[in-house]
C-alpha cells in the first residue's frame, strides 16, 4: 500500500479543515438565519407613565427578537435549552410544558416569516416592568412527526410583560388575546 503524496495530504487536510469549519459554524449560521427571519418593530410613543429611552427601546427590540427566535427553536426542535435566558416566570413555565407535551405527543410547531408590531402600553414609574402589545403575523405550521397537519398564515395578538434581568429584558408573560 503506497503512502499518500504531499499534494494529496494537503488536499485531505483542506477538506478536513473545511468540514470542521462547516461543523463549527453551522449553529451560528443557523441562528443568524433564524434570527433574521424574525422582524420586530417597536412603537414606544404612547408608553407611560415612564417614557422609554432609546437605549431601552433598542434593548427591548433585541431581546424580544431573541426571545421569539428561541421560542421557535424550542418548539420546532422540542428542546427546552433555547428557552434559557429569554423567558422567566409563567412564560417560561408554559413554554416548558408545551415542549414536554410535544415530546409526548410527537408534535412540533414552526413559526415561519415572523413579523411583530410591538407597542409599549405601560412602563412602570420605576422602570421595573413593561407591558407591550404584540400584533404578530407568521405562518403557523404544526407537524405530527413528518406530516404537516396544519399550515396557516395567522395574525395573533399577544399581551407581553417584560422585566429587566441582569443583562437583558426577559419575557415573564406571553398571553394571546382575541383583540386589544
Amino acid at each position, binding site marked *: 500500500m503506497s503512502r499518500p503524496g504531499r499534494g494529496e495530504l494537503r488536499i485531505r487536510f483542506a477538506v478536513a479543515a473545511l468540514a470542521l469549519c462547516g461543523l463549527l459554524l453551522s449553529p451560528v449560521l443557523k441562528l443568524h438565519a433564524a434570527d433574521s427571519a424574525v422582524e420586530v418593530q417597536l412603537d414606544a410613543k404612547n408608553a407611560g*407613565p415612564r417614557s422609554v429611552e432609546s437605549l431601552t427601546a433598542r434593548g427591548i427590540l433585541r431581546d424580544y427578537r431573541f426571545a421569539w427566535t428561541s421560542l421557535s427553536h424550542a418548539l420546532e426542535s422540542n428542546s427546552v435549552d433555547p428557552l434559557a435566558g429569554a423567558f422567566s*416566570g*409563567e412564560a417560561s*413555565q*408554559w413554554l416548558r*410544558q*408545551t415542549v414536554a*407535551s*410535544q415530546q*409526548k*405527543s*410527537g*408534535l412540533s*410547531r414552526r413559526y415561519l416569516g415572523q413579523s411583530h408590531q410591538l407597542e409599549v*402600553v*405601560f412602563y*412602570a*414609574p*420605576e422602570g*421595573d*416592568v413593561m*407591558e407591550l*402589545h404584540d400584533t404578530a403575523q407568521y405562518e403557523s405550521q*404544526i407537524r*405530527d412527526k413528518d406530516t404537516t*397537519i*396544519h399550515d*396557516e398564515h395567522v395574525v*395573533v395578538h399577544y*399581551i407581553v*410583560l417584560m422585566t429587566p434581568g441582569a443583562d437583558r429584558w426577559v419575557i415573564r*408573560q406571553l*398571553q*394571546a*388575546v*382575541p383583540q*386589544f
Partner: protein
Amino acid sequence: MARLLQLGAVICLAGAFVELCAAQDFRVPATAVAGEGASISTTGIGKAIFYLVGPGVSRKNDLTLGEEVQLGPQDLRNAGDYLAIVCSGTCRSESFYVSAAQPANLTFLVHPSRVPVAQGDAVSGVAFPFDQYHNLVLTPENISFQLRGKETPLWSRSVRTQNGVAWFRTASGKSAGALQVVASLGDLNTPRAVEQVASDPCNLRITGQRTPKGILVQTEPVHDCAGNVVPDGTIVTFTATGAAGVGTVDAPIKQGIARAQMEAPGATTISVASGVVMGNEIRVGAQP
C-alpha cells in the same frame, strides 16, 4: 353497455355517500375559561385523530366521529389561543380562545423600600391581577391602594385596571417609621412595607468649647423640618477656619448628635454642614 353505466353510477354514488358520511365536522367552544373543562362536538362517521394545540398543551388522541371530545381543566389551564384539529383523510382545524379566570392573586410592586419623609411623588406601586393559573386578568377590575402609617390611614385611591395593570404614585408621609402600602381587590390583600426615614436636617445648630486638647464641637439634636430625628450614621461635616488654615472633620450622628474634637490653638471660626444643608457658625477664642 347500459348495465355497465348503471354499475358505474352506483359505485360513484356509494363512494360519494361514504365520503359524505366520513367527512368530519366539529364545533369548538364559543367561550372558554382557564381551568374549566369544555367539549368539542363532532359529526360524521368513522375514525379520526384529534389534536389540541395551545399554550402548554399538545394533545393527540384517536376519535370516533360523531362523539364529543372532552377537554379537561388541565388541558385549558393557560389563557390564550388554542387550535383543535381533526384529521380523517384530510385535516380540518378551528381555533378558539381561553380567557383568564377570576382574580386569585395580586402581584404588587412597590418602590422604594426606604424613602425620606415629605417627598413628592416618592412612593409608587404597580399591581397586576392574576387568576389561580397565573394568567393575567384583562377584564377591568377596581384595585384599591392604601397607605397607612402607624395605624393611621394616610392616603387611599381606587384605580381601575387598564390592560391588566393599575398603578399609583404619591408623596411619602410626614412621620418617620414603617409605612404600610396595601393593594386590595375584593378579598385579596397584598401588603408591602416601606421604611420612611427623616429627610435632610433642618436648623442645624452647633455649640463649641475649648478644652485642653483643642475645641470640642457638637450639634444640638438633629431633626428634619418635620421634627423627625435624623438617623444615626448620617454624616455631619465640621469646618474650622483660623490663622493656621482650614481643617475639616466628618462625624456620624450618634443618638441624634454629632461630635468632633478639633485641634485649633488660635481663634477659630467653626461651621457645620450635612449634605446640602448648612448650619450656624461659631467663633472660639484662642487658647489662653
